[in-house]
């Protein structure tokens, strides 16, 4: 399972590098503009994050935990995965459609917001009392 994840990660990073190199080559040969290259690479990164995060809830090892803790970690994993998927899609959409002067700041705000929600959610999950029953 872990080796499969590593293979997927390596394949994905390879795809990003090949895309970036291909776009650079296209720009060098005056096939696309520099702005297009910048947008395309950022869109690929955003969509990559969304695709990768999609599988977070499938890979959480929570089978040996107590029922209450397993429920909390399951809920945290689901929320975190949703946050990263939405942040990734938002990041890609901003780089695809927003003016370039705004895209950097706006995409970082979206990604930063997602990361803050995830960190707060993880902190709540870790520090909440072990005896607490899961939220319904």
């Amino acid at each position, binding site marked *: 399972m872990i080796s499969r994840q590593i293979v997927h990660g390596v394949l994905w990073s390879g795809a990003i590098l090949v895309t970036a190199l291909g776009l650079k080559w296209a720009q060098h040969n005056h096939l696309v503009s520099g702005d297009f290259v910048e947008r395309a690479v950022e869109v690929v990164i955003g969509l990559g994050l969304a695709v990768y995060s999609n599988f977070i*809830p499938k890979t959480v090892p929570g089978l040996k935990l107590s029922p209450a803790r397993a429920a909390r970690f399951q809920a945290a994993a689901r929320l975190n995965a949703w946050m990263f998927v939405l942040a990734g899609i938002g990041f890609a959409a901003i780089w695809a459609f927003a003016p370039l002067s705004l895209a950097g700041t706006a995409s970082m705000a979206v990604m930063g917001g997602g990361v803050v929600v995830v960190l707060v959610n993880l902190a709540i999950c870790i520090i909440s009392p072990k005896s607490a029953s899961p939220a319904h």
Partner: protein
Amino acid sequence: MNSVFKALADPTRRRVLELLKVRPMTAGELSDQFPVSKPTMSAHFTVLREADLIEMNKAGKTITYHLKLSVLEDALLGFAAVFRVGTQAQDDPSPLSTPQKV
């Protein structure tokens, strides 16, 4: 992906997934929520496991099911619930909702 759509097409299986969203549950706890026999529920669990939507953990005689939904599958589950996919098959006695010849 076909197995995921098949699993999500049945309202009983969708209800099982909704229950597992709250917390992992034993097979008995899940079966108690439905007015169907345990073998029927077992068939539903098998379909969900084959679609990789739930995971089974056996400790002694107790079988606990855990949710294993990706974000996309979670969204599909939501869409299927909103549009009430397969609700006309709710009265179907077959656990796999396949039409039977008379």
